[in-house]
């Protein structure tokens, strides 16, 4: 009996089938290539977005450029309101003009999405808006979340 078992195990090879492996790996690869956002910016300011009812979707994501305004998460001046564009914090509001103008030259249909923390004050937002007007980037979007309790306001 035992000799019979031995004989069988010796005969059939116990290899893992590897023929389908490349296909699976390729599929995973393609999936991640498609879904991965290439440049994930690290947001250094806190942006808890306000809620709104009359919101619209931005269909073309490639037109959008973000401006983050909110209290700093870390660092020496923690809690102080700061402006961030892409990966950099903006020290002087006047620099927004130059940055946005460059972006507008690259993408004439630029939409600037203002991701502003709901506790921020309007002064900073107004300053940024004035800079955007100077730069000529007039299409803006106040990023906000869908208000679930629509009738509460």
């Amino acid at each position, binding site marked *: 009996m035992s000799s019979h078992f031995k004989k069988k195990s010796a*005969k*059939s*090879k116990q290899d893992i*089938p*590897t*023929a*389908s492996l490349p*296909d*699976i790996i390729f*599929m*995973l690869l393609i*999936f991640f290539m498609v*879904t991965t956002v290439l440049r994930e910016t690290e947001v250094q300011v806190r942006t808890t977005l*306000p809620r*709104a*009812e*009359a*919101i*619209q*979707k*931005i269909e073309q*994501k490639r037109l*959008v450029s973000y401006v983050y305004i909110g209290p700093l998460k870390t660092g020496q001046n923690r809690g102080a309101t700061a402006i961030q564009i892409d990966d950099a914090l903006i020290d002087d509001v006047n620099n927004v003009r130059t940055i946005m103008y460059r972006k507008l030259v690259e993408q004439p249909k630029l939409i600037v*999405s*203002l991701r*502003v*923390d*709901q*506790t*921020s*004050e*309007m*002064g900073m*937002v*107004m300053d940024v*808006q*004035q800079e*955007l*007007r*100077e730069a*000529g*980037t*007039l*299409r*803006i*979007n*106040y*990023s*906000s*979340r*869908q*208000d679930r309790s629509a009738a509460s*306001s």
Partner: protein
Amino acid sequence: MPLRKKERETTEIPTSSMADIAFLLLIFFLVTTTIDIDTGINMTLPPKLEDDQEPPPVKERNILKILVNAQGQVLLEDEPSAVNLIREEVIKHVQNNGQDPRYAEASNKAIVSIKTDRQTPYDVYVQTLDEVWMAYFTMWDNEARVLGSPNYEAYKDGLGPDEENMVREKIPAAISLAEPDAGSEG
């Protein structure tokens, strides 16, 4: 001889299940990934004014002034009000058609002006803007229903590329963000 024959049979790899595995993975990722869509309130900023250029003259009665102060209190046409009353007031203002002398002469001339203080919380500003937009959305929906569409969204989708948007023609959304006071800077 029979031993060798058996060995050849076992080397074949079953590939019939590969499609199942692939589909399973695909479905798994389809379910788990969330592609977040950006949402927000769209606005168009007014173009920059030249130094010697004055803002275009607008009749006083055509402007509905909304002021929001540092405490988040609302002043509607110089009268204390609340954020949730704005919507109604905007509709009254825009669809007045010259009846009430306090409101606008015609829908396409009506302007809603929002002015905020530097210390106004952003939250309140967005709520105010939201209310004004909702007022316009409501009016557009009503107008689209008159033209025979269930709502404005359906009407807009049904428009051809060359067709004029009659709803927007009749009630253009004129929301003015007031120029910040020069004196309050710094």
